[in-house]
């Protein structure tokens, strides 16, 4: 497989893989949430890479650029706008829960919190 052409895919999957590693392997609650954030980042990059078309322009009509047949796919961009916002709200809720768990147990270590072992 020619690696150069799928460099963006590779980058996206690297982020997703690192994120999975953090979610599964890390013992700190906030690190786990950071892993989730990295996974979402990778997915956003993946979507945009799918929508990209070589030598096409951004899907915005201006006075200079008005040829809509030479624009990249707008749909993945719209999806990513949605996904970014969803990610933010999940993240905020997760951090609030982590803060509360810390307030009870005075630790962020998963192994020391009985209800959180998985």
């Amino acid at each position, binding site marked *: 497989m020619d690696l*150069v052409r799928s*460099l*963006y895919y*590779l*980058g996206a999957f*690297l*982020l997703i893989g*690192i*994120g999975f*590693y*953090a979610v599964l392997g*890390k*013992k*700190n609650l*906030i*690190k786990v*949430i*950071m*892993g989730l*954030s*990295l996974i979402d*980042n990778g997915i*956003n*990059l993946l979507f*945009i*890479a799918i*929508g*990209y078309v070589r030598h*096409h*322009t*951004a*899907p*915005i009509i201006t006075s200079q650029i008005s040829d809509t047949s030479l*624009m*990249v796919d707008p749909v993945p*961009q719209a999806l*990513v*706008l949605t996904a*970014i*916002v969803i*990610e*933010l709200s999940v*993240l*905020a809720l997760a*951090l*609030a829960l*982590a*803060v509360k768990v*810390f307030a009870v147990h005075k*630790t*962020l*270590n998963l192994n020391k919190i009985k209800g959180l072992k998985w």
Partner: protein
Amino acid sequence: MGILSAFLILIMSVAAVFAVHTKDLIGASLLLGFVSLISAILFYLLQAPDVAMAEASIGAALTTAIFIMAVKKTKRFEDE
């Protein structure tokens, strides 16, 4: 564009690895913001200025701020 994007992707992955590896959670939040910032640049290179703006303002700025606030309310260093 090829070399530039390869360089950016490399830096982004390294930053992500360090963000997961480091014991300092504030540092990790900042590195995470850096990853978001680079992916915003990548979005711009991939002809997605809308998403780049959203990622830069939401992913890089606000998420980092929220992470840092949460870390401030808990504990800065990851223990064994």
